[in-house]
């Protein structure tokens, strides 16, 4: 079997993989390989033809393909190597990557560092327990998006959407513009997980009703979807009898959440978080396996690609630093003995990324990204160093659909040499 050697292998050529590669090169590592399973770089941005990308990164509003193009051009200008139509099959804890494509067959790559940038997958019908047959016409919103925007096919003419995630909202507008009738969007929660802007510009603009606390209880049709029944749910999520409404439709789109795609990470033996479904990482975005880094939606699902790029750049930089340490043959044992601080999310905060910090390895300033578990108004985001409150920031509203962050300074943390845990929580006053 063919054997290749690279310093850094990046799994995934979407926004995370591209930004990680560019930054790793800037940090002085040259033998970088991006492996992408699709026929082009850019990942899911290629099918996100709507605008609203890049406001943070480029201070202008771009469409998904335009945003991707900027990074793709830089990768090509800097001659960073990539392989398209190539699937990673396995990665060992010693960082031997097994991949395959139709031109080279199966081959192995020895890497000094790995960056996981595989993105996420949509939660499927199987995860939802909707009874009934398995007729044609049921698509995840992202699959429908690919059909319409990349392949040029309309999945159907009369549409009901379950779940009000951003992709579902975007597809409600997209299919309406292409002549379909989107009858209703049903959301089981009392609030939408989508951005306000999308609710206004994708639903309200076209008079598409959003039914909160509603779900699909029955799908009619054996060969093809003929209609769905939607019912209101109580606080526990159970359908309320007598509230059923029937909608004729030929298509049901599901926009019911995204899950980081970590099959390869599991093979490496990387420890995963139960909350994010992504790897647990330290301040360097390094997983539990030394030299294996993670960034973007494989680490935790983001709402804005700008923050994916920012996070991936950090992973790329740290992977490059790791490679340089290995090349100098420095003893990495020192690192394993380093003082490690646990980050504890509690009181309304669901998770943090990273999950641990080694003060000695921190940048001057470290971003801690987190999500809350419910919609809260007029709360304070508080950070405690052990029992001492060091940050208390008023927020008029926080919601599960909007990722939050706090910045911690290295100099502040170094003032507490005995610090064992940092707690992030929401407080009423």
């Amino acid at each position, binding site marked *: 079997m063919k054997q290749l050697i690279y310093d850094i292998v990046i799994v995934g050529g979407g926004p995370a993989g591209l930004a990680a590669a560019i930054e790793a090169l800037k940090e002085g590592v040259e033998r970088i390989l991006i492996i992408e399973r699709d026929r*082009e770089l850019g990942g899911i941005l*290629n099918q996100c*033809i*709507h*605008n609203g990308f890049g406001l943070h990164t480029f201070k202008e*509003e*771009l*469409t*998904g*393909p*335009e945003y991707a*193009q900027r990074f793709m051009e830089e990768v090509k200008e800097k001659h960073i190597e990539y392989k398209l139509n190539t699937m990673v099959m396995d990665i060992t804890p010693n960082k031997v990557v097994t991949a395959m494509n139709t031109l080279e067959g199966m081959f192995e790559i020895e890497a000094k560092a790995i960056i996981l940038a595989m993105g996420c997958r949509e939660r499927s019908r199987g995860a939802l327990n909707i009874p009934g047959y398995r007729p044609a016409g049921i698509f995840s919103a992202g699959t429908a998006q690919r059909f*319409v*925007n*990349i*392949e*040029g096919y309309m999945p159907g003419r009369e549409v009901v959407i379950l779940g009000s995630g951003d992709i579902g909202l975007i597809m409600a507008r997209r299919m309406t*513009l*292409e002549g379909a009738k989107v009858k209703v969007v049903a959301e089981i929660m009392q609030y939408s997980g989508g*951005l*306000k*802007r999308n*609710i*206004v*510009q994708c639903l*309200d*603009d076209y008079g598409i009703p959003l039914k909160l606390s509603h779900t699909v209880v029955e799908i009619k049709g054996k060969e093809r979807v003929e209609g769905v029944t939607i019912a209101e749910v109580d606080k526990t999520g159970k359908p309320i009898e007598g509230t059923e409404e029937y909608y004729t439709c030929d298509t049901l789109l599901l926009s019911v959440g995204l899950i980081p795609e970590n099959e390869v990470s599991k093979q490496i033996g990387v420890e995963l978080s139960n909350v994010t479904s992504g790897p647990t990482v330290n301040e360097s975005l390094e997983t539990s396996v030394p030299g294996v880094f993670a960034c973007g939606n494989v680490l935790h699902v983001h709402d804005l690609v700008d923050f994916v790029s920012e996070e991936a750049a950090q992973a790329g930089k740290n992977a490059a630093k790791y490679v340089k340490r290995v090349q100098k043959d420095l003893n990495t044992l020192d690192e394993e003995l380093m003082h490690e601080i646990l980050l504890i999310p509690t009181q309304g905060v669901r998770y943090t990324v990273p999950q641990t910090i080694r003060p000695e390895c921190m940048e001057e300033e470290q971003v801690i990204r987190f999500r809350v578990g419910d919609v809260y108004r007029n709360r304070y985001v508080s950070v405690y160093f052990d029992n001492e409150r060091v940050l208390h920031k008023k927020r*008029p*509203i*926080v*919601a599960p*659909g*909007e990722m939050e962050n706090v910045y911690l300074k290295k100099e502040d943390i170094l003032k507490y040499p005995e610090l064992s845990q940092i707690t992030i929580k929401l407080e009423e006053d």
Partner: protein
Amino acid sequence: MEHNLICIGCPLGCMMKVEVEEGQITTITGNTCKRGEAYAIKEVTSPTRLVTSTVKVEGGNLSMVSVKTKTDIPKNKIFDVMKSLQGISVKAPVHIGDVIISNAADTGVDIIATKQVKSVNL
């Protein structure tokens, strides 16, 4: 006349009421900040949107190319602009910024490509 709006300026999503009498805005209520007021005035007097879609490509490495209106267009012209794209196809190669339709639906705004498509020899 009364308009009910949800502000899109931030996650707060203020529910705003705008009173209009004889074409003039008389009161705006429900907003928390100045941005909300500006948004309300724009939405009630001259709402605009950017429109994005796709068109077919002949002889390219991809079969569709994504496009957008170069700038915002009046909201009530969205479907006219979509209609102008019906049946349109372009020949590869296509570059970002290439004009696909000029002055789409008499809006004075061009529709431009947002993706690069290479040509392939069949």
